[in-house]
């Protein structure tokens, strides 16, 4: 069907055979921002991985506009100009489900470069589907003295009710705050009143569509940003600006997998992971899989695959010392993943195995808290 735009603004689909070609419309130049940047405000860098913040459809090409500079962003969200001055780095324009560990590495290098060049905070715009994975990845790859803030929107930027503007303004406020770690800043509730600041290694998308889908798991959020006052409140356990010295550790081992156990799962599925350097299991409850899988897991471990157990409960910690199956898993060489989220354990495993070749040492590192991903104490209920 050919889509015809009527004078009234309505589109209708008509059979192309009933259309006559008249010619191409005149090309229109993209508008440029008139919003001036204030040089006395903090310098932030915005690294974009997908067009979430300032995306708009170009009706003539039917695609999202490829222009992405400070001007575009400020034109879309003029309030941002009150918070900081911006430099923009278009790293990728992908849907977040198409994110790869290779792009995480590029992203880590770009963020590192910005901080090294004097950015007092970095904002990363990201699709929300895999934002938590990327936030975890950057958490492990960079020691940052400044805030690194992931932000996105759950309702597209081309609608008046989009959460993009408030999230962006709150992200910029968090990026100019006293924070000194990798975080995700998104709506705290369905109201347009507060954003939560989440630790990059403890955050999860817990709803497919709501604005307040992102939740801190196992810990409280690091803080909040009030809207529209932009007031940032940080909890005492949030890592403060300047606590870490800038460093980049950008090696990752991509041959790692994550598999969710379910009742009746065939041991054959584990064959696909033969030759992998690491495998994270999202087991049931305290960290179990059926006993029929244990011989296959043992085989993987004997061939130097690091196997870490996490829980598909998402909340709470694994303990393989309570029941027989757990003890058998430990005997087989499975490592308890503490209270790590399954996907964070996967990303950590890529990073650990990228930096530590020895399986035993790597296994030990998986149980050490590196970037707040492993809590020694469980202080948080549901």
């Amino acid at each position, binding site marked *: 069907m050919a889509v015809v735009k009527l004078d009234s603004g309505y589109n209708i689909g008509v059979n192309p055979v009933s259309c006559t070609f008249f010619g191409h419309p005149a090309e229109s130049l*993209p508008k440029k921002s008139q919003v001036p940047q204030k040089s006395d405000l903090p310098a932030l860098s915005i690294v974009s991985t997908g067009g979430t913040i300032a995306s708009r459809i170009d009706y003539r090409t039917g695609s999202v506009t490829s222009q992405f500079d400070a001007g575009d962003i400020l034109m879309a969200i003029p309030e941002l100009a009150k918070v900081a001055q911006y430099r923009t780095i278009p790293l990728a324009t992908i849907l977040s489900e198409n994110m790869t560990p290779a792009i995480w590495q590029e992203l880590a290098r770009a963020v590192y470069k910005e901080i090294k060049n004097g950015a007092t905070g970095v904002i990363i715009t990201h699709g929300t589907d895999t934002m938590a994975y990327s936030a975890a990845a950057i958490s492990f790859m960079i020691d940052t003295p400044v805030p690194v803030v992931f932000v996105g929107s759950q*309702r597209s930027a081309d609608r*008046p009710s989009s959460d993009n503007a408030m999230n962006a303004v709150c992200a910029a406020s968090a990026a100019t705050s006293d924070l000194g770690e990798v975080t995700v800043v998104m709506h705290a509730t*369905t109201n*347009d009143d507060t954003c939560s600041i989440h630790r990059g290694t403890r955050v999860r998308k817990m709803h497919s569509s709501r604005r307040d889908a992102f939740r801190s798991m196992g810990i409280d959020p690091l803080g909040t940003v009030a809207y529209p006052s932009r007031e940032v409140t940080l909890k005492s356990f949030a890592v403060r600006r300047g606590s870490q010295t800038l460093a980049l550790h950008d090696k990752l081992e991509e041959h790692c997998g994550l598999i969710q156990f379910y009742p009746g799962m065939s041991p054959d599925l584990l064959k696909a992971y033969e030759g992998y350097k690491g495998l994270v299991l999202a087991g049931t409850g305290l960290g179990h899989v059926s006993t029929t899988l244990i011989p296959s897991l043992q085989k993987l471990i004997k061939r130097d695959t690091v196997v870490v157990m996490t829980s598909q409960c998402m909340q709470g910690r694994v303990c393989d010392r309570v029941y027989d199956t757990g003890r058998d898993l430990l005997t087989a060489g499975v490592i308890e993943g503490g209270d790590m989220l399954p996907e964070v354990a996967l990303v950590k495993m890529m990073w650990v195995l990228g930096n530590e070749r020895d399986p035993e040492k790597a296994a030990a590192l998986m149980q050490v808290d590196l970037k707040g991903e492993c809590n020694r104490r469980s202080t948080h209920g549901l």
Partner: protein
Amino acid sequence: MDYKAAGLKAGIEIHQQLNTKEKLFCHCQTLLRDSSEHSGEFFRYLRVTESEMGEIDRAAQEEMKRDRKFHYYTYDTTCLIENDEEPPAPLNDEALSVCLTIAKMFGMTPVQQVHTMRKLVIDGSNTSGFQRTALVALNGALPNGGEIETICLEEEAAQRVKDDIFSLDRLGIPLIEITTSPCMHTPEEVQEVAEYIGMVLRSTGKVKRGIGTIRQDVNISIRGGARVEIKGVQELDLIAEVVRREVQRQQNLLGIRNELQQKKASIHDNSKNVTGLFKETKSTVLKKAKRIYAISLEGFAGVVGREIQPDRRLGSEMSDYAKKCGVGGIFHTDELPAYGVTAEEVARLRAHMNAGVHDCVVIVAAVNDNQAACALDQVSIRAQLAFSEKPVPEETRKMLESGSSAYMRPLPGPARMYPETDVLPVIVDDDRWHATTVPELLTAKARRYAQEYSIDRNYATRLALSEKLPLFERAVTEGIKPKLAVFTILSTATELRREGTEIGKISDEDYLATWHAVESGRAAKEAIPDILRELASGNTFEEVLRKLAPAISRQDLESIIHKIIADRSDFVLQKGQAALGPLMGVVMSEVRGSVDGKIVSEILKKEIAAALAEKKP
């Protein structure tokens, strides 16, 4: 008034809620709730966004002048889609079918592939900031030769509870929007066409009934004037009056333009902060104001206070424009001294503003300098328009109770349309179109009823247009005598309503049960008003029947009648069969209306005859 000479052109847009099972883009019921029943609440800000062509709609731009923080009430009958927290479900196919039926009734051409659009509306009435709408059919005809331009399927907006609080129960109910061309030339014609379209819509049996379920927007222009859209006319009877008053308004604005041009009116930015002049004022509005600003409109004296419509002055238009900045309105020297402002204050104000006798000074009370400047800017813009080449601005206006109208916003343009990327287009192929059947028009139905059931023609028409038509049709199918059903629906129920009975509380099932009881002899026809009264006060049908019409078997009845006759044997012997009439009353009061009079009379006759035969020597 010669409307043709005035060059009146009018068109209407009719918005009618459809009575589908579910809403247009979610699976919630199309159920209206009492706002006190709300189970949750949230708030949002709305921002203006660009169209796909990279433009900002002028109507949306106007809304940007105010704070757009809106509160919403949620219910256990609404879901995340109304909250704008979940992508829409596919377009409701039942609603599309109703639209196609109506399109066919007007002889229209369906769109081959229906595309849902987002129509930008940032007044808060849609949580998303847009109303989803799809063009379904084009090019229809009216019997009077007029044209239906388009049929659109839209989602209903949220209802304003008060101020910036909206209720989400109504949001998403399917609406059909029928737009005529500007093919009407007299106020009466507009009303007739609206009535006709309303009748066609109701003929489908698939539209909601009752106040607020149908709304008319009227587009009006006269020669030299401009197209103005008046929204939200809910009563049909007011349409012609709305058109008359708009013609009057446009003509008066044209007259004012000529007068202002003659007077060499002009607008300069001579606005001043005059807060100090009103330090000791007795005016409650001005006393409360943090800032008072004034502007002098040169050559406007006497014109700002001029009536352009009943209860509306040019000053009212300026005031509507200023209100967009959040102020309560304006004062002007054509109406002062008044509202607690003294003659001395007016004289001081005029002197301070260097205003001459031909000038009108407008003042505005605001909370800060920005708001005051914004409001006076709006006043200047409206004043400038008054003596421009286009003294009637193209506007969307809202109807006031009397039929006059107030400014809402500029007419929106095509820039407010954006494709709804979350909804897939729907193909209407030839098979679907051919399979769409057209129902009998209510006017035709009325003629048929009059004939088939020998019902009075007026009665038949009233019945066909009544909300209770489906009940009547059900009754007839269930074997109830048509005349009994019609009489109850049109006469009995109306009388009961007039005496204050809440007949709306009587369900269709209760009506049917009542009729069945009458038809089967369990209740007398005469008892219907009493039964309905009791039903309306909340009793169940069985309770009512027990109370008003205790079941009496034929045998019981015969023995009751036998006893009555035996007690009055002298009277019966004396009167013979003429005793029937008086005895009917005695029996009916004894059985309290629970037996049909016909049966009573039949048994009475027999028993009287028997009594007479017995006593004969």
